[in-house]
């Protein structure tokens, strides 16, 4: 394999302007913080093996759960699905040599490591924040100020990084498309990134504003959110969830896009319902901005507000459901290659549907009032972001590692990783629904002894999850060093990142950017489909 260009290793540690280098920087940094956040999650599960707080002190437990949530959301999932895969793939898909603002792109990445280490350092400077990733006042005002202030500064940095990234994505997708490439010819991931970036631009600044006011409450003695000084703590909740509900879509829409890229290739079929996928994304973006108060049904929300937000939240299941049926229809009668990438995608579909169903349940006020702030919410949330997005991140790593490194990952280790992840994840989080329904509150180090057995089962699942990381790490290190050469296009894919060498040259293609107007043109005669799928193929060609 004649690789035209090797990026020198030190460039990955420097202020590189290459979108591919920045994407990998995001990916590796994010994965480092995933290991940190995972270790913290392990500490939580160890603590919960027994009903008493015997492993950690109670306030240490609060710090650990706060750091776990913040790190996983702001330093692993958001930077990796947006920063890593967005940066790596979007310029390819629009037929550009780089992002619209390469320097801004690098600045956005380099805000990440300082923010991460700032956050971690707070543990050693008088203790980390203790008020959870939501930092609700008055708790965040009354807990030790140093850790909370460092938390705020860190999240502000990460929010800034996210906004810079979003500006870049919108400009790249709308303004840098190769001549001849229309918006409705783009791969679905571009639409997902466009929708996500719109959410980031509209929602993240509101969180920044809320955190500025919160920091004034902490250091300047104002009373915006402090009821003792005449303030209103619920206003913080509104501002916080105006960002943090869209944040769920910021975490999951890019994952939707990645699944839409991976499934057609490994099922050898066009993506089902291209237009309806796009309109679903736009629908989710719009609805995602007007459902935030369903997190606040127990915060004294008036009846009209409960009604509105219940209905809006229920409606959001429609575009999401459309996407799911489209993915199933994409798989239907496809020539499936059951490799790690596809298996992780199937795991995603299973887990996310389950998380989606509990989400609709939680949107119903009577049910939500019953399980609010219990382990049911914890289980639901982890089915969305872990069973959903993290599974897609792994699928995407198995899918694009050959392009990034020029070498294939080992499939045996990959499937072992997938199996362990799926089992570990479901053993860890499925029982937590039961815990929540039976009244075990979240964010507590001590609990009623009747819950001990289920908690221990959950902890066993967490142990399996920790073990599942080992085959992955071995796989990545070994394959990057000695893996089988991937060739330029190991998956016989249509999209433009595969129409160049692996790894690609600095400006993506040595010649002019290829024009791919039908990114999902699979299942045609050249794919030499077996007889069993002829019917499916005819169906598709008749539909075009």
């Amino acid at each position, binding site marked *: *394999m004649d690789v035209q260009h090797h990026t020198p290793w030190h460039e990955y540690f420097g202020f590189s302007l290459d979108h591919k280098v920045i994407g990998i920087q995001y990916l590796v940094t994010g994965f480092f913080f995933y290991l940190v956040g995972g270790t913290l999650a392990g500490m939580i599960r160890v603590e919960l093996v027994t009903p008493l707080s015997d492993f950690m002190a109670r306030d240490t437990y609060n710090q650990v759960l706060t750091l776990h949530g913040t790190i996983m959301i702001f330093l692993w999932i958001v930077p990796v699905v947006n920063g890593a895969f967005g940066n790596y793939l979007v310029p390819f898909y629009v037929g*550009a*040599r*780089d992002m*619209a*603002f390469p320097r*801004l792109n690098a600045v956005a990445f380099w805000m990440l490591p300082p923010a991460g280490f700032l956050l971690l350092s707070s543990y050693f400077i008088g203790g980390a924040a203790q008020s959870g990733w939501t930092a609700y006042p008055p708790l965040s005002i009354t807990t030790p100020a140093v850790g909370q202030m460092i938390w705020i500064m860190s999240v502000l940095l990460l929010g800034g990084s996210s*906004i810079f990234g*979003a*500006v870049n994505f*919108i*400009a790249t997708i709308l*303004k*840098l498309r*190769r*001549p*001849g490439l229309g918006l409705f010819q783009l791969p679905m991931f571009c639409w997902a990134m466009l929708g996500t970036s719109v959410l980031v*631009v*509209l*929602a*993240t*600044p*509101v969180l920044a*504003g*809320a955190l*500025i*006011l919160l920091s*004034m409450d902490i250091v*300047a*003695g*104002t*009373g*915006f959110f402090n009821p003792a*000084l*005449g*303030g*209103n703590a619920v*206003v913080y909740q*509104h*501002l916080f969830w*105006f960002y943090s509900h869209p944040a769920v879509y910021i975490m999951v829409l890019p994952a939707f896009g990645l699944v839409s890229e991976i499934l057609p290739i490994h099922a050898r079929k066009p993506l089902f319902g291209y237009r309806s996928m796009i309109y679903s994304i736009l629908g989710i973006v719009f609805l995602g901005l007007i459902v935030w108060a369903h997190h606040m049904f127990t915060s004294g929300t008036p009846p009209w507000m409960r009604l509105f937000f219940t209905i809006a939240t229920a409606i959001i299941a429609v575009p999401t459901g459309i996407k799911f049926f489209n993915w199933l229809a994409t798989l239907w009668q496809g020539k499936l290659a059951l490799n790690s990438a596809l298996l992780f995608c199937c795991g995603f579909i299973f887990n996310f549907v389950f998380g989606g169903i509990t989400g609709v349940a939680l949107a119903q006020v009577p049910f939500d009032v019953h399980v609010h702030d219990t382990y049911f919410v914890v289980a639901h949330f982890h089915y969305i972001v872990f069973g959903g997005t993290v599974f897609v991140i792994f699928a995407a790593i198995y899918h694009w590692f050959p392009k990034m490194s020029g070498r294939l990952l080992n499939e045996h280790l990959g499937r072992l990783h997938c199996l362990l992840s799926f089992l570990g994840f479901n053993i860890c989080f499925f029982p937590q629904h039961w815990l929540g329904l039976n009244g075990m509150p979240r964010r507590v180090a001590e609990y009623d002894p009747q819950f001990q057995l289920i908690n221990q089962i959950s902890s066993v699942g967490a142990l399996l999850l920790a073990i599942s990381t080992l085959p992955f790490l071995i796989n990545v290190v070994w394959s990057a060093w000695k893996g089988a050469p991937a060739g*330029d*296009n190991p998956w016989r894919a*249509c999209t433009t990142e595969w*129409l*160049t*060498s692996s790894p690609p040259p600095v*400006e993506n*293609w040595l*010649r*002019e*950017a*290829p*024009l*791919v*107007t*039908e990114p999902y*043109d699979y299942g*045609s005669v*050249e794919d030499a489909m077996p007889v069993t799928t002829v019917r499916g193929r005819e169906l598709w060609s008749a539909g075009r």
Partner: protein
Amino acid sequence: MTILTQRPTAPLSDPLEEAQPQAPAHSHHPDVRLFGLIIFLVADGMTFAGFFAAYLTYRAVNPLPVNAEYELELLLPAVNTLVLLASSLTFHRGSKALMASRMATCRGWLLLTAALGAAFMAGQMWEYFHLPFGLTDNLFASTFYALTGFHGLHVTLGAMMMLIVWWQAGRKGYFTPENHFGFEAAELYWHFVDGVWVVLFALLYLL
């Protein structure tokens, strides 16, 4: 191996592609910096929108203590509003001068705009020192200082940008009628800060 062999289904000889051969360097892509700035200003505007929403909610649901009803002095802020609106006009005149390549005039307008911005900030400071309430007195006071302070920060940044642009405009050939992104960016930002003030003035002083 150089691949670039297209799948047969992706048209190899697209008429558009032949008509517009791509230069193999990204230095040739169109300048989209102004577009990026507009997106950023939308984000910045959302920060203010969050503050305004919080302020309006406080007005609606959090009654102030009896001794905390203030009749704000209107004359100075009204004059200040006019000063800021006038500064948008002078910046625009500077832009017109730039388009006509009259750099000396352009720089004059820029200085005047920066002076108006400074006058606005001075007026704001004077108001701060003569108000009957401090930052932590009550919810209205805190919101008042947070909103005007955050806006004042924007004005200060804008005025500093303007001085940089003024200095750049003095260098021969730095800005041309065709190519003056830095100037356009500062102008757009300044108009944005103005627009935000009009909303802020209406909400804080008039409502």
